[in-house]
C-alpha cells in the first residue's frame, strides 16, 4: 500500500489546491471517490490513446467530483499541469462538471442519473463489436435517488452486460443530509443484487480490495462495487463532516492540510 501513499497524498493535496483556487464546491465529494479514480487511471484502465476504440472507458457520473477526475488524469499524463491548474478559470475547458468538449471525457456529467445509461450503451456497443474492454461508471450514493439509474440497471442485467462495472461512492451523505435518511437506500447492495447485478461490498479506500473487486469476473451479469467511503477522506477535520460539501479551507487550515498530507 505504501506505493500508493505518496501519490494519493499528492493527489489529495492537488484536489484541495485547485478546488480552492477555483473557489469551487464539492471538495469533500471529490476526496471521497478520489482513491478509486486514481487507481483506475493509474493502475487499472488501459487507455493507449483517448480515441482508441478499444480503450477502457470511465464515466464519472457524479460529475461534481470533477477535481478528483482531473487530478487522476493528470497523474496518468492525460492532462498537462497547465490544463489542471486552469480548473474552473475563465476560458478553461476544465469546468466544475466534466464537459464532453474535453478530450478524454466520455460524456457530459453533472446532472445526476445520466452516466449509467450511457455506460450501458457503451458496454452494449463494445460487446456487439467484440471489443474486450472495461466499461466503468462511478456514481454517488445520493445519485441512487434518480429513477433513471434503475431503468438502466434493469436493461444492463436483461442484456447480460458482463463488461460493465458500476461503482457506488457510498459515503453516506448527499448534499444536505444522510443518504440513508433522505430516501430508503438501505440495503443498497441487495437492491442491486435483486436487479440482477453481481454486487461486491468493499472499503473504497482499500485499493487492494478495490483491485480484487475490479478483477472479480461476474459471468453473464453486470457488476456493482458498493464502496464504503468517507466524505472528505484524508483530512482529519473534513472526514465525514458534510459542511465540506460546499466549504473551502482558509489559510490556517491549509497549513494543517499540508502537514497531514506531507506536502
Amino acid at each position: 500500500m505504501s506505493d500508493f501513499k505518496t501519490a494519493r497524498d499528492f493527489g489529495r493535496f492537488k484536489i484541495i489546491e485547485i478546488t480552492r483556487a477555483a473557489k469551487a464546491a464539492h471538495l469533500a465529494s471529490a476526496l471521497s471517490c478520489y482513491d478509486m479514480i486514481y487507481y483506475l487511471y493509474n493502475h487499472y484502465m488501459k487507455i493507449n490513446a483517448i480515441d482508441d476504440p478499444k480503450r477502457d472507458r470511465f464515466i464519472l457520473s457524479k460529475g461534481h467530483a470533477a477535481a478528483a477526475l482531473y487530478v487522476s488524469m493528470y497523474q496518468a499524463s492525460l492532462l498537462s499541469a497547465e490544463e489542471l491548474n486552469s480548473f474552473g478559470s475563465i476560458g478553461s475547458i476544465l469546468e466544475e462538471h466534466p464537459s464532453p468538449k474535453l478530450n478524454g471525457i466520455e460524456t457530459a456529467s453533472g446532472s445526476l442519473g445520466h452516466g449509467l445509461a450511457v455506460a450501458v450503451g457503451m458496454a452494449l456497443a463494445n460487446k456487439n463489436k467484440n471489443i474486450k474492454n472495461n466499461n466503468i461508471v462511478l456514481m454517488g450514493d445520493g445519485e441512487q435517488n434518480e429513477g433513471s439509474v434503475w431503468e438502466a440497471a434493469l436493461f444492463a442485467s436483461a442484456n447480460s452486460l458482463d463488461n460493465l462495472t458500476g461503482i457506488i461512492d457510498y459515503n453516506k451523505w448527499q448534499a444536505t443530509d444522510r443518504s440513508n435518511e433522505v430516501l430508503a437506500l438501505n440495503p443498497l447492495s441487495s437492491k442491486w443484487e435483486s436487479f440482477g447485478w453481481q454486487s461486491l461490498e468493499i472499503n473504497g479506500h482499500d485499493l487492494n480490495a478495490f483491485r480484487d473487486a475490479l478483477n472479480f469476473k461476474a459471468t453473464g451479469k453486470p457488476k456493482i462495487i458498493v464502496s464504503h467511503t468517507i466524505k472528505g477522506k484524508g483530512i482529519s477535520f473534513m472526514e465525514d463532516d458534510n459542511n465540506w460539501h460546499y466549504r473551502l479551507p482558509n489559510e490556517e487550515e491549509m497549513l494543517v492540510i499540508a502537514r497531514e498530507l506531507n506536502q
Partner: protein
Amino acid sequence: MRNAFAKEVTELAKDNTKIVLLAGDIGNRLFDRFKEQSPQRFYNCGIAEAAMTGIAAGMATAGYTPITYTITPFNTLRCLEQIKLDICYPNLPVTIVGTGAGLSYAGLGATHHSLDDIGVMRTLPNLQILVPGDAIEVSACLRAAVESGRPTYIRLGKKGEPIIHDKDFTYKIGRVIPIKSGARHLIISVGNMLGESMVAVEKAKDKYGLDTEIVSMGSVYPLDKKFLKNAFNKFERILIVEEHGFVGGAGSAVLEYAYEEKLDTKKLTSIACAKSFLSGVGSQENARRKLGLDSDSILAKLTI
C-alpha cells in the same frame, strides 16, 4: 408514416451495419422484418425512455448510429434532459423518432397528445428537427438524418396518411419540399397536416379559382431561410399549418425569423392549436374540426 419508417429503417440497416434500432416497448410486429434481418441491432428498451436515450448516446460514442423510437410525448418531453445532455451536448449521431405526433392519438387523451414537442425540442442546441408530410417524405427524411451524422428529431404522424408524392426523392435538410407552385398565396404545411392542406388547396381552386402554392416544411430546424425570404417578397399571404400548439411551434420559428429579418409579418397567418389540455375530442378528424385545423377552416383562413 410508421410503416414507411419501419420499411426504410430496415432497408437502411441492411447495408449500414452501424444502425441500431432502440424501441420503447412499442410497435408490436412493426419491426419483425428488422429483427429478422438484424437481430443483433434491435433492442426493446422497455418502458424506460430516459435509459433508452442514454443508451443510444453511449452506443453512438462507440461508433453506432442509433435510432430511438416510441410515442412522441414519451420520446421527447419524458427524456428531454437525456436528449439535451447525452445527445445534443456532445453532438452525437442519434436520431430520435416520435410516432403519433400532434393529435394522431386524439382519442387516447391529453397524455398521448403531442402539441408541444416542436416547441420544446427547438430550444436544444445542435438538434435538427424534421417534419415529414407523407410516407415518401418519411423515408427521405430518415435517410437524410442518418446520413447527416448529427442529432436529429423526426416527428411522425401515425399510419394511413395520404401519399402526396408519386416518387421517392433525396431530401436535403434545411430545405422545404415543393409540392405545387402557385401565385399570391402560400401554404407551408408542417408534417402530418400535408393531406389536409392539400385538400384546402384543391377546394380553394375549385370554389374560388385560387392558385395557391404549397410546400411541405420538411425541416423546422434548420429553417429554409432562403425560401422564406423569397416567399415574403413573392406572396401576399403565407399560412403555416401545423398540428401543434401556437407557442414555440413551426409558426413561431418562422415568425422569429421574419421578425429578425424585418420581413412583413402581417402576411403571416399561423394555423395551430390553442394552449390547452384537450379532452373528449374523439377522433383525429373530429379534433381537427374542433380546433380549426380541417381543410374547411384552412380554406376560410386562406380566403379571408
